[in-house]
């Protein structure tokens, strides 16, 4: 192909040049620039109040500074996160900056430039001799940010921020070399679908490309419904143009002229940001008709999913697009052959599509140098639960769970013991501490009964009951079952009911066999992957934590002391200090009373076992005890409040 005078790349370089100048202006700003992480989680932690705080104090002190809203760095434990670029200093990252801390930073650091407030500082973004740098922390050092490279560092509302870091260069390159080449690159990279199942994206594209029917369609699946997973949302909110670029490359490889972003309605900010990004990209001719003069056109629109977990399943997603109930359909035909309106439809996860531009940019060999042979590249996990540094973590495939939980995320909080990790959400499994050497990739996790799923990872300590966790996930999937097929609709309900009865102390030993029998049938006989994976949490907990089930059934005891019908709280009168009313004050049901000897006791009938008193009791006394079964409460000779006293209290 002869090089055209105005090739897509040349077109793009004009945009990129202008973008770089604009961003340079920002980076070399003579006045300080304050970047505040404003994705959904940052906002939940108070980022907007932080911005208001900065604005107010800046104004009061007559300081000129720019405030930029950026996306999410993934360091959720440290939100709200703020980066301050103060002339004369390296860019510095601060943690937990509320409105009050914002004021201190302005007065101490921006006003006279003397004190960079080390107490809130995480580190400098670049190497600097006066400051610790981010790479001094394991959380940054061990991560390998490929897909999330720019998240939290660029403004998602500014296409120029993305263009300035090389954004859309991959698309321009793809347009020059053609869809076939893009397809081959992604195939050679062995990029596997990040939505959970790990089906090679290139193979899916190839199937659709070869089907003769047109027009073809590419859909970005952002119906992230796994409770405990939010990496798709973060990518959509923090680097929307990378998703769009991946989507455009996929469309190019497949030969599609239309693309859809399917985003759950529960992610309003992601929808808003993506809609804006589409307009911006169209404005620069990076989407729309005749993209960058290449002759390739792509129309992109957003469809809001209405909150049905099952719509993450490809065939159900398509049903919902045509205005039907989101019922999964038997396959074949696969959507890549006959999907929406019978047309070839490729559906890829947000993470998969976000990875594509990086592959095109650096080449498939580079991509295969990361991760393992069968699962190349990186994996993004949302690590939550009882770890020191929860948040989004991007690590190369092939690292162990141990490495991820202990080295990268700082291990278990409060010096407690790791009990299990739940990986892969409702379709995944619970793995015990003894399996922490398991390698993270698509295939290894399956061999131990879990799966990558969409990458949710919940870390649990000894205070989490595994029966209860299994009940929780089964309750979730049975509530989200579309109701079409017998095994999923009724089978998961029986699983849930049996688990529920075990957690309230009414289980029977023979029901453990029922659990296994029904689970196996639901896996084998269900129509779609929701049913086929729903019993995984049940089977893995039965396999690795059977003794907990038995304790619930035979001793009516919850070893983790979590199942409320099987536990009770009491106040140990020995350490209980006289006169301290912390527990009485915190109790939402007024179940705690003062005994005749001025100590405290709990009225078991009123107690709802919320555990609030455990936290309220000052650590130096630490007098609230939790026991299971409830009969374990020792007799401390506490006289129950006489009825007259009770009446007196009530009349107060």
């Amino acid at each position, binding site marked *: 192909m002869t090089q055209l005078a105005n090739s897509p790349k040349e077109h793009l370089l004009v945009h990129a040049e202008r973008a770089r100048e604009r961003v340079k202006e920002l980076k070399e700003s003579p006045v300080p620039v304050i970047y505040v992480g404003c994705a959904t989680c940052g906002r939940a932690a108070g980022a907007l109040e932080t911005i208001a705080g900065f604005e107010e104090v800046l104004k009061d002190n007559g300081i000129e500074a720019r405030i930029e809203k950026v996306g999410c760095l993934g360091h959720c434990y440290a939100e709200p996160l703020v980066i301050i670029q103060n002339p004369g200093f390296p860019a510095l990252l601060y943690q937990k900056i509320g409105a009050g801390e914002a004021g201190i930073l302005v007065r101490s650091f921006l006003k006279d430039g003397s004190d960079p407030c080390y107490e809130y500082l995480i580190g400098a973004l670049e190497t600097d001799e006066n400051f610790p740098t981010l790479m001094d922390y394991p959380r940054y050092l061990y991560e390998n940010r490929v897909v999330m490279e720019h998240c939290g560092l660029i403004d998602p509302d500014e296409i120029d921020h993305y263009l300035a870091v090389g954004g859309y260069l991959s698309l321009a390159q793809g347009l020059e070399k053609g869809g076939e080449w893009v397809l081959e690159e992604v195939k050679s990279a062995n990029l596997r679908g990040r939505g959970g199942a790990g089906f090679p994206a290139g193979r899916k594209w190839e199937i659709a490309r070869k089907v003769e029917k047109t027009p073809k369609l590419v859909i970005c699946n952002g119906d992230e419904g796994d*409770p405990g997973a939010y990496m798709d949302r973060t990518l959509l909110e923090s680097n929307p143009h990378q998703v769009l670029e991946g989507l455009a490359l996929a469309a190019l490889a497949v030969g599609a002229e239309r693309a859809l972003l399917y985003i759950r309605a529960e992610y309003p900010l992601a929808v808003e940001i993506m809609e804006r990004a589409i307009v911006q990209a169209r404005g620069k001719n990076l989407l729309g008709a005749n993209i960058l003069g290449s002759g390739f056109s792509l129309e992109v629109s957003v469809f809001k999913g209405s909150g049905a977990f099952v719509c993450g399943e490809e065939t159900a997603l398509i049903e919902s697009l045509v205005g039907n109930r*989101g019922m999964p359909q038997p396959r074949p035909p696969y959507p890549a052959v006959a999907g929406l309106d019978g047309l070839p439809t490729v559906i890829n996860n947000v993470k998969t599509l976000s990875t594509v531009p990086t592959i095109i940019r650096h080449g498939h060999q580079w991509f295969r140098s990361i991760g393992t042979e069968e699962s190349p590249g990186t994996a993004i996990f949302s690590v939550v*639960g009882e770890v020191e540094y929860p948040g989004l973590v991007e690590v190369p495939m092939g690292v162990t769970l141990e490495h991820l939980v202990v080295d990268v995320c700082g291990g278990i909080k409060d010096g407690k013991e790791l009990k299990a990790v739940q990986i892969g959400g409702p379709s995944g499994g619970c793995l015990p501490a003894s399996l922490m050497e398991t390698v993270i990739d698509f295939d290894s996790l399956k061999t131990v009964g879990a799966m990558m799923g969409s990458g949710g990872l919940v870390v649990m300590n000894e205070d989490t009951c595994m029966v209860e966790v299994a009940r929780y996930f089964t309750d979730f999937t049975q509530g989200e079952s579309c109701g079409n097929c017998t095994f999923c609709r009724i089978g998961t309900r029986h699983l849930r009911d049996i688990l529920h009865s075990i957690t309230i102390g009414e289980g029977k030993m023979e029901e453990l066999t029922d659990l296994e029998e029904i689970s196996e049938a639901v896996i084998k006989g269900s129509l779609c992957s929701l049913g086929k994976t729903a019993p995984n949490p049940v089977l893995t907990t039965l396999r690795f934590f059977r003794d907990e089930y038995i304790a619930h059934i035979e001793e009516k005891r919850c070893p983790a002391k979590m199942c409320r019908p099987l536990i009770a709280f009491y106040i140990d009168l020995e350490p209980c200090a006289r006169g301290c009313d912390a527990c009485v004050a915190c109790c939402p049901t007024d179940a705690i009373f003062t005994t005749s000897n001025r100590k405290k006791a709990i009225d078991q009938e009123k107690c709802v076992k919320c555990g609030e008193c455990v936290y309220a009791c000052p650590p130096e006394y630490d007098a609230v005890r939790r026991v299971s079964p409830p009969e374990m409460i020792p007799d401390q000779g506490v006289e129950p409040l006489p009825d007259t006293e009770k009446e007196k209290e009530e009349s107060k």
Partner: protein
Amino acid sequence: MLDQLLAALNETERAAVDEEEYQILQAVVDELPAFSHEVSQLIPILQEIQGKHGYLPRLALDMVADHVQTTIGKVYGIATFYNQFRFNPPGRNPIKVCLGTACHVKGGEILLENFERRLQIKVGETSDDREYSLERVACIGCCALAPAVVVGEKVEAYVTPSKVEGIITEIEVRNEMAAREQAKNDATSE
């Protein structure tokens, strides 16, 4: 069209359509022509109506069915399939307790009970004065800030059972202040 639909209702059903709902239905009559008549627009239309008015009145479903030329059964089937749609008006302060995995492990269930106790309504209900409604949501993706609760549009992080009281008190104080402000304005305008 609206009158026609109302006429088709039986007496108890008609009595259930109050002035407020009638206003909403009138608005929907005006809004519908802006949408295409394709069945594939069904979900976006329902989302739009609920987004504007907070819920989907029963007769609005009939109107939508008529607009996209399908049956009420189909529209009702869609609306009841997806979690997003609701059929009664939400409270002025809708409270959504997240019960995603992380929130559940950290006691989301207990929070929900505390809200139920404090507001004297069950999950899925709206208080009689329409001040509060209480819902559970599967996951709002703020797992590292668990347990989380969404009050109105705002996400509250690290909510402990005792913080429930604070959240409600904050709303009450805000209402009280607004009421006083209103009274003051009324007084001055007189």
